[in-house]
């Protein structure tokens, strides 16, 4: 009888141990799962942040700055006083017509496309996959007026970029001796 009792006690204590061990295993699994989820969250967050961030590039900034001196085919006043690219942006903003009758904005877009196509060599097999350009007029902040678009276009597929390089340029607009706003030229290049 005593033997039976001691066996029962043993079984009970073993059951208790087994239950405790199971609880421990469940606890450990929960901890591991939480750590893995936290790790994955951190990893995905850091990778996503790297992908979307735009890195300012001296090469792109130099390209924008150099293209501002580019002589265009549009002359507003007389021949051969051709606008450089910076003046052409202002002419387009003022909706001026070139001496040969062409719209300055049409020439602006055509010239910009030619400059960027030649210098960036956009293509699916090329280093540069796509680009976005945005030229807009920004009023002084105290006036609370939304930006006015002058030119916007993109080329190529702006997807799966391993690096996005960017640069910008600001043109001061002064009328009657007062800064009435600025024109911004932004360029983003998708590098694969």
């Amino acid at each position, binding site marked *: 009888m005593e033997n039976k009792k001691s066996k029962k006690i043993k079984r009970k204590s073993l059951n208790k141990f087994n239950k405790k061990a199971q609880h421990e295993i469940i606890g450990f699994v929960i901890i591991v799962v939480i750590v893995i989820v936290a*790790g994955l969250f951190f990893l995905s967050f850091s990778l996503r942040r790297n992908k979307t961030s735009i890195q300012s590039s001296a*090469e792109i900034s130099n390209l924008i700055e150099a293209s501002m001196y580019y002589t265009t085919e549009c002359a507003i006043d007389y021949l051969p006083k051709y606008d450089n690219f910076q003046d052409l942006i202002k002419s387009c903003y003022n909706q001026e017509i070139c001496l040969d009758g062409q719209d300055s904005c049409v020439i602006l877009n055509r010239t910009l496309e030619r400059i960027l196509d030649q210098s960036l060599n956009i293509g699916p097999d090329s280093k540069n996959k796509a680009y976005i350009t945005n030229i807009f007029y920004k009023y002084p902040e105290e006036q609370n007026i939304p930006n006015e678009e002058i030119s916007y276009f993109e080329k190529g597929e702006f997807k799966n970029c391993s690096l996005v390089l960017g640069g910008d340029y600001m043109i001061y607009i002064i009328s009657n001796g007062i800064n009435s706003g600025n024109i911004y030229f932004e360029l983003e290049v998708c590098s694969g």
Partner: protein
Amino acid sequence: MKKLKLNNKINRKSLNKKAQIKIQEMSFVLIAVALFFILVGLFIVSIVQSNLYRKASDFAQEKAIASVKNFAYSPEFNYNEQNCIDADKLIGFVKKESQDHNYEKFWDFTSIKVIKESGFNKSEGEMIECNAGNYPDCDIFILYDKTPLNEVSVSSYIALCKKEKENSYIYEKCGLAKFVIGSERKIPE
């Protein structure tokens, strides 16, 4: 009574053993968890470090590009604006076959070239080298080229300007160009 005592002894012994096993288990689990965290930490550190190396090389390249821009601004090349160089000055620098070129010793670079817009998407073999005979209908100005074995080149976009004449008026015409500077990569012995 004796049997009960014996049973108790056996129970205590088995319990002690079980406790030891539990302590062992616990220590193993602790070691495993610590190892896991160390591995995760190492993984994160390696990612951060690789980003740092990439950023460092990016910064070095940006610095090199900025120095090219500063070099292009020197009076030997400069037009009248920053980031603009004078094509007519460049043609004066282009090496003539009968002439020794002192500028190879003047600048501490292994090569200086300026690629015009027309030569952007051409290989160097396809480009037409500028000289007094074909200027301005050419693609590349080679100021000098020492062609060392291990050359690293850095390029930057600049505006290439020159005076042109139309309807008896003189005006300035600017296009895009790439200023390319080469320097020798030192290999540790």
